[in-house]
């Protein structure tokens, strides 16, 4: 049992935090948000130069070949900066997923380019009726000679508009909800029949609903054998969920620090409002939520690539429940304790709050995962 990070892991976190301190001020963040583009390509290239985009790229493709712990230190550092760029969707989830198929030439090529910051790929998987159920895929891929023809609708695909390649899941066999029959395809975004309806999300990131209508792809764009992609997609999303938890912890820490600072300086009734016990106890509650969340983020990180699927699922759902609730609590209280100022766009507090709100919803909110956890542990002796 050991809760220390290695020197290498610490240095990675410090390097990212140092870079973002310099290059990603709150003013810059607001400017990017106002621009509506959802990202800054220069920052993206800076992250690539730092090696960050290659941490999940296998060494054979020129990456660092690191794992969940390094991803945790990266996401911990990205949280406070509220980085809008597609680190989670491309450099974590899509990269981890493609690494499963690194033996195929197109995937290997793409991975190498992603690590260098030259290309961006994101997973387009969840559908409007799936409500966070990873197994619920209705989109279809019909074999047509040497090609496949894809039809379907993918909902709220993060950073789809920034990506040159979409990793699209579609059924080559079976019915919606069945575990077998889901296949993964590399879909260049410019392929005829691919339509993106893009929008900004509450946290200032960009997302899109992806409509596929008669999208014709060469058979070479199929990743792996037909019908068996679901386990790899789940595994990549599990690593992504742990990364999201780590980001949330970074944000909660930043919100706590900002709130304590505000309570020490804001004067009312002739004294700093931090002298009032009602507010002190709220801060104590925030501290407890944060530390419990940090513990669960460690658990999620250490279990997210476990070979024992039941153990992995249990740990990740438990973490998402606790961190979703903690994030809601810490975010809401931070706004409350900042009073009217907490409601403004001018303070970073409201921006952190909105990102925590998004994080609770992403990949299933706390209720969804509570039910999942209960189903997994029901009838089991403690």
């Amino acid at each position, binding site marked *: 049992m050991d809760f220390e990070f290695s020197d290498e892991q610490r240095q990675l976190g410090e390097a990212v935090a140092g870079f973002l301190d310099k290059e990603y001020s709150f003013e810059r963040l607001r400017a990017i948000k106002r621009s509506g583009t959802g990202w800054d390509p220069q920052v993206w290239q800076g992250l690539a130069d730092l090696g960050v985009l290659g941490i999940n790229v296998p060494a054979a493709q020129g990456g660092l070949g690191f794992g969940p712990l390094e991803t945790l230190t990266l996401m911990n550092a990205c949280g406070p900066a509220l980085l809008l760029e597609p680190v989670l969707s491309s450099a974590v989830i899509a990269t981890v997923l493609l690494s499963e198929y690194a033996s195929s030439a197109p995937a290997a090529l793409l991975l190498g380019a992603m690590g260098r910051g030259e290309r961006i790929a994101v997973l387009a998987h969840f559908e409007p009726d799936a409500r966070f159920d990873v197994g619920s895929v209705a989109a279809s891929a019909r074999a047509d000679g040497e090609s496949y023809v894809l039809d379907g609708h993918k909902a709220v695909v993060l950073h789809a508009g920034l990506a040159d390649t979409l990793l699209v899941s579609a059924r080559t066999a079976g019915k919606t909800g069945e575990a077998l029959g889901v296949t993964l395809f590399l879909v260049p975004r410019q392929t005829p029949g691919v339509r993106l309806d893009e929008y900004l999300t509450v946290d200032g990131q960009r997302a899109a609903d992806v409509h596929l209508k008669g999208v014709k792809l060469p058979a070479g764009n199929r990743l792996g054998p037909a019908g068996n992609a679901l386990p790899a997609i789940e595994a990549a999303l599990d690593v992504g969920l742990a990364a999201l938890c780590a980001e949330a912890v970074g944000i909660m820490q930043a919100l706590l620090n900002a709130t304590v600072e505000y309570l020490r300086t804001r004067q009312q009734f002739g004294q700093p409002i931090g002298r009032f016990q009602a507010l002190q106890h709220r801060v*104590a509650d925030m501290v407890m939520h944060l*530390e419990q969340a940090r513990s669960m983020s460690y658990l999620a990180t250490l279990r997210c690539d476990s070979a024992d699927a039941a153990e992995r699922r249990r740990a990740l759902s438990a973490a998402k429940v606790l961190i979703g609730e903690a994030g809601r609590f810490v975010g809401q209280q931070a706004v409350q304790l900042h009073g009217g100022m907490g409601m403004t766009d001018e303070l970073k507090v409201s921006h952190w709050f909105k990102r925590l709100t998004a994080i609770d919803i992403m990949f299933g909110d706390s209720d969804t995962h509570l039910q999942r956890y209960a189903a997994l*542990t*029901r009838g089991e002796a*403690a």
Partner: protein
Amino acid sequence: MRLDFTAEDQSFREQVRSFLKERLPREIRDKVLNGIELARADYVLWQRRLHDRGWGATGWPVQFGGTGWSAVQQYIFEEESAKAGAPRMIPFGIKMVAPVIIAFGSAAQQQKFLPPISSGESWWCQGYSEPGAGSDLASLRTRAVREGDHYIVNGQKTWNTLGQYADWIFCLVRTDPQAKQQSGITFLLIDMKSPGISVRPIELLDGGHEVNEVWFENVRVPVENRVGEENRGWTYAKFLLGHERTNIAGIGGAKRELARLKRIAAEERKDGRPLGEDPLFAARIARIEIDLTALEITNLRVLSAESGSRAPGPEASILKIKGTEIQQAISELMMRAAGAYALPMRREAMEAGWQGPAYAATVMGAYLNQRKLSIFGGTNEIQKNIIAKMMGL
């Protein structure tokens, strides 16, 4: 970073388990696992067996008969003991007064008092709280006046846990009424058989007799029973309060009670199905289990940071608050799981012949009794004050 225990700690855990399996009497285990009150003799017998194994005083330094275990090993020992149904260690001797005697007592006091604490021969209780001194402990008023080789003690202590069993009491008394509150206090060790001491039971809301008032009327205490210096008692008291942290969250006990809750939920029926399969009830259990999982890791983080050299932060208060909240939540859900059979008053219903399932007989008492957890040892509100202070507020 890794969550798994080292191979060394794992084999230690096995050692503890097999000791518990061999030496923990079945009657005692059954009482603990079913929430039935233990008798004094049960506690003493178990302490004796631990002592005979060399595990009577786990947290003490080796030269005083301690085990020399790491914080992690102590944690493992306490977790396994609780899960197996061993009696909880009565903390007042082993975990409270002994560390003070070791740190501040004379060699003569160490020789006289420590061995019988470890062997279970002497039972200690605590004389801290007074009717007017609860969370604000330093406002205590029990007086001790020096008269030759003795202190003459007059006053009243309250919330004294299991004092009816005790051979000795450690007391905070005021020796300098002129001094500022915290600087006129002295730490005395008092023989409960001393003339002038009377112990009166306080009946609690669960009908149990767990705490007492202790009255002192011209009680003569030899000066040799003073720990450290006169008027420095507050320093020793604070040391005592900050000392014990390995089991403050009560993880092992909470795991045991959670398992019991699940067994009850498996037996109770709702709409012809086990209550544990009811989605709402299953979610309530799951939510507690998730909190407990997080707290266990938080606790392990604190232990592993302690073996390093970090300055103490608000961790102890976090562990106390979350640990007691979880234990209370489990006892509440257990009571609710039992349904209508949580209602009959146990003693009377036992005489009439208990009609409900056996587990239902103890759940209401336990629920009522566990409300104490967020009050004693520094109320949870005081703990929040401490956390806020640590945060710079």
